[in-house]
């Protein structure tokens, strides 16, 4: 059995430095959310936030709504369809019973999500019973098979595009582990068979079917009754699919959300352990800064998108340069020229692979040995059988001996020395917290490390805390202890703000929802008497009574020269700027006759940036004046 379902999602990225942080958009994803809408989805509840019970149906719908809002910003080229089954009404191209494809106007059934789609889907639940309705689709005595129909409709939706350029997925949400349980005998076996065949046909077309089962609090979803065959997992893999029973709602939601994202291999590399022994690894970007989506420039008059054309012009002759130019570096009063090939050859100091150099104790890896986010590596036996076994053996040894591997990663454009740090799997009730594998940490070279501390060294000994002061600090630390702190528990407030603004503008909402800055310190907690006392004691032991004196802002003459100068320039600018009638100059188009220095008076006086060419300065002044 193929344990590596990721091959189709492979992309050969990570080569260019500037693309390091970005994901490529060329592999699109087509997803059909297939949601069981049977009465059982409405009648089963889980205790949710505020002790209120929430139905399985609600959990699923809100997870999907949430993921659509993320997706429209992060991966807006992906296309989605939402399809309910076990419904009273039907709406689908095949005209199959019990299947309802949800959509809004001006949108194909499988299409990129739009603002309207998200907005209406968000409110869909209220009118669901009236418009779509819930009804068991598989009952004894009728030959209807709503699950079969649903798969058929989903496959139909995924007809578009080739499997080469798009990843096609069906995500099936249900809490019914035995869909044909109510049937008997030949009818049951027949329906089971045809449904499994339908699923297999879809899989043969390159569509992956993933099950997202919901368990009832008292009874675990038994995947081996039916669905194991449908999604094609067996044996040990079952444990991966299965959520444990009795999970809290938050965990369940969390897990569903996690699994809505596909895993993408960034690169496949070979790890050379010694000459003649190299194993196969896949690398994954598990941690990368998320940035607001790319800017599209528009013409402010027509709102039409613009494209940027870059042209290279010879500074000496003004001629347009067609061929990619050579590069040069001034050196010893000469211009030394390099061709692009030469430059890339200089960078190629190794052969693109990861090469083991040796091992060191973990204490050699300092906190400042870091430059970029790490990359996760996981073994694969897809091409080289035996890789995983070697990897596991090394990983266990490294964990046990508390050592990390030093290796050279010969990435053609950015070769670097790396540390491979072993990570054991960490699992909690909510699922896998840390996957087992190694993290590749990019090490700095000596050229990248600065010895700042030495700049602050003194010929004499510097002040040092006494044991008593350290004790007071320990007491303080114990008071302000974040026991359950986990990395990445905060949402990025500026990003959330950005999304909220965008969403509000796109959905034409009147108000921009306030976002909660989770990164702000816990003021209430800090104000508790125990904490306040500990801080006061520490303060007293360190500063004595000189705290106010040392922290006083003004008056100690320490304002730096630069800031004094800056202040003087600003004051002068305000004075000078007052000598001109700017409105008049602007109206008569006389700004262009002024000198750059004069223009900067206005800008400095109004606290505007003074960078750029003269035209930029003028346009900035005009914008500021509202002309």
């Amino acid at each position: 059995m193929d344990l590596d379902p990721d091959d189709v999602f492979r992309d050969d990225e990570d080569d260019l430095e500037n693309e390091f942080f970005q994901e490529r958009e060329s592999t699109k994803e087509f997803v059909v959310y297939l949601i069981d809408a049977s009465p059982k989805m409405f009648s089963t509840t889980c205790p949710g936030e505020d002790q209120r019970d929430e139905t399985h149906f609600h959990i699923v719908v809100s997870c999907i709504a949430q993921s659509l809002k993320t997706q429209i910003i992060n991966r807006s080229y992906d296309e989605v369809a939402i399809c309910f089954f076990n419904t009273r009404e039907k709406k689908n191209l095949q005209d199959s019973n019990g299947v309802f494809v949800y959509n809004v106007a001006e949108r194909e059934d499988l299409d990129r999500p739009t603002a309207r789609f998200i907005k209406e889907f968000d409110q869909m639940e209220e009118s669901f019973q009236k418009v779509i309705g819930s009804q068991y689709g598989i009952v004894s005595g009728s030959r209807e098979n709503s699950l079969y129909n649903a798969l058929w409709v989903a496959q139909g939706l995924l007809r578009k595009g080739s499997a080469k350029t798009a990843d096609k997925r069906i995500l099936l949400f249900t809490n019914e582990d035995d869909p044909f349980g109510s049937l008997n005998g030949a009818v049951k076996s027949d329906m089971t068979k045809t449904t499994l065949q339908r699923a297999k046909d879809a899989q043969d077309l390159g569509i992956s079917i993933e099950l997202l089962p919901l368990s009832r609090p008292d009874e675990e979803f038994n995947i081996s009754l039916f669905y194991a065959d449908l999604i094609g997992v067996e044996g040990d893999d079952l444990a991966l699919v299965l959520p444990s029973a009795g999970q809290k709602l938050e965990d369940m939601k969390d897990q569903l959300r996690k699994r809505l994202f596909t895993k993408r291999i960034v690169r496949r590399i070979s790890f050379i352990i010694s000459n003649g022994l190299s194993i196969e690894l896949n690398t994954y970007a598990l941690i990368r800064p998320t940035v607001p989506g790319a800017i599209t420039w528009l013409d402010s008059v027509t709102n039409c998108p613009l494209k940027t054309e870059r042209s290279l012009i010879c500074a000496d002759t003004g001629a347009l340069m067609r061929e990619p130019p050579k590069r040069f570096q001034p050196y010893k009063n000469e211009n030394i020229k390099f061709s692009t090939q030469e430059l890339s050859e200089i960078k190629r100091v190794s052969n693109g692979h990861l090469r083991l150099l040796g091992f060191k104790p973990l204490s050699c890896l300092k906190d400042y040995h870091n430059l970029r986010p790490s990359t996760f590596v996981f073994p694969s036996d897809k091409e080289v059988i035996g890789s995983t076994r070697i990897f596991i053996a090394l990983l266990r040894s490294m964990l046990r001996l508390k050592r990390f591997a030093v290796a050279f990663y010969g990435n053609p454009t950015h070769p670097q020395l790396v540390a491979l740090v072993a990570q054991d799997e960490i699992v909690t009730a909510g699922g896998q917290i840390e996957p087992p594998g190694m993290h590749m940490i990019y090490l700095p070279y000596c050229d990248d490390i600065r010895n700042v501390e030495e700049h602050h060294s003194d010929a004499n000994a510097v002040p040092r805390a006494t044991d008593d002061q350290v004790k007071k600090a320990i007491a303080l630390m114990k008071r302000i202890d974040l026991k359950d702190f986990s990395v990445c528990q905060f949402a990025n407030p500026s990003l959330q703000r950005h999304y909220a603004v965008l969403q509000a503008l796109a959905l034409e909402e009147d108000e921009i929802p306030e976002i909660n800055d989770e990164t702000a310190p816990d003021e209430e907690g800090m104000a508790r008497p125990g904490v306040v006392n500990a801080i006061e004691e520490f303060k007293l032991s360190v500063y004595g009574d000189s705290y106010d004196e040392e922290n006083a802002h003004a008056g100690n003459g320490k304002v730096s020269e630069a800031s004094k100068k800056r202040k003087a320039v600003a004051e002068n600018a305000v004075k000078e700027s007052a000598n001109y009638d700017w409105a008049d100059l602007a109206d008569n188009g006389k700004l262009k006759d002024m000198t750059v220095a004069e223009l900067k008076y206005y800008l400095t006086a109004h606290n505007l940036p003074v960078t750029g060419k003269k035209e930029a300065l003028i346009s900035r002044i005009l914008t500021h004046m509202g002309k």
Partner: protein
Amino acid sequence: MARNREGLLLLLDVGPSMHGVLPQVEKLCSMLVQKKLIYGKNDEVGIVLFGTEDSDAGTKEDQVGLIAMRMSALGMKMENIVVRGSLIGNANQIIMDENDLLLDLFSKKSSVKTVYVESPTALLGAIKTRNISPVTIFRGDLEISPNMKIKVWVYKKTSEEKFPTLKKYSDKAPPTDKFATHEVKVDYEYKSVEDTSRVVPPEQRIKGYRYGPHVVPISSAEWEAVKFKPEKSVKLLGFTDASNILRHYYMKDVNVLIAEPGKPGAMIAVSALARAMKEMNKVAILRCVWRQGQQSVVVGVLTPNVSEKDNIPDSFFFNVLPFAEDVREFQFPSFSNFPISWQPNEQQQEAADNLVKMLDLAPSGKGETLQPEFTPNPVLERFFHHLELKSKHPDAPVPPLDETLKKITEPDVELLAEKKSIVDAFRRQFELKENPKLKKSTRRLLREKPSGSDERHGDDNVSDALAVNSIESKPDTKVEKIGDLTPIQDFEAMMSRRDSPDWVGKAIENMKKKIFNLVENSNKGDDYSKAVELFVALRKGCILEQEPKQFNEFLRRICKFCQEKNLSSFCDLLESKELSLVTKSDAIDSDVTDDEARSFFVKRELKYED
């Protein structure tokens, strides 16, 4: 800016015991001077050579003391690089100890830094060849609470030294023009996507952000009004166990937080917190906005940097941690769920233990090799080397990677030789083989690219021949028919089978059937693109194997069939891809002329109109 100018004096010991490492010393010095030529043209450099053969160091303690005092009075700094270990053959231990004593005296009395290096590679990285004066990125309060603030300065501790950005060169100016700058200006024009003849001036542009298929325009003024605007501040959120922060969550280059100079209270506060954190194995979590007007906040972890030297203050390192949005929580299988055949057995585990233990880069008693602090960037070293060569001979080829630098990119040969038995034992324990189920053409992993320095035009020639050299057994895959999954690969595999002459014929027949089926059973042209792909492969294969007739007959048959069944859109597709008959110039056995091939589809159209 006179303040940043540096006067540098290199004192080189050229006594006999140093002769072994003089080539590296020379390299280090020339690197230093080369970088000065680029980054610090106004700096001044001098070199003094001295031999220690008969210097009588023991009686000079007083002199050293005096010199040290004078040096610190003049604000001079000194860096000593002491070469150690196996590099120096029969050095006199007593003299070495005496020298150490003197150097130690220096470092007590003035700003002197002494480093010991044990390998030529470390020697190349032992001093900063480029002097960057540190600039604070933040000066202000570290807020423990609203009632307690510690004055700190924040600097970069690591920052990547990038490959130099070379300017673009223009050779358009006539060679006689002595004042030519040879520079290239980059010009940007903004054109409407719909009407490319219309150029929009830069100030008429407005930023738009994608929201699904729509773009939402937002002017900078509008954005200014609604965007997130945090106040400049560095605030403590709390302390937590160091084990809560896994090392791989560090996101960026690293900062150092240091108490503001001249503030004894702040220095003690930092010192107390750092030492308390170290003792209790705790770290602090901070929320930082370094500059006023910055649009984002960072949350990060503060770890103690307790100084071992009396004259260097305690400080903290700061690493940025990810936000919830930055982490992709992919699930991976547990190793315990893998089949037994993937799990190492006891002997294998032992061999791995030995390898991890013995292939040691930091053996106790000896220095740590490849310490980042002493490891130069091989790419930059190579660039400056090439630059120097080119300044003498403009056509000088890219030099091979220096032997000393190869110790960074490749395992140390001596270490491997020393630990050969362990490495061999490890290799004996494990067996690797290529997955026989994979098609040859999909194998990409094991193709080794030649490392640039040796083979200059390797890039395009890397073919399957080079593919598998790290693997002993390579079972040939025997493809016998064309499957559904990878038809093209199957076809190619069959065509290249040499164990019987029949395979070519079989492959072509098989492929024809496959294409025919696709075209015939395609529902509204769904599978046409796939069929065309197969067509391309078939055509290529027929040319390669000199079977033009097979292809031409098939093409004619398909076209006829399409006309009869009203499936002409498939033929249109073939035409648009220029998949016409195989001509005589393609394959010598063909009886089709180029003209005939060109008019093949045209004729078809005429017939169609009839």
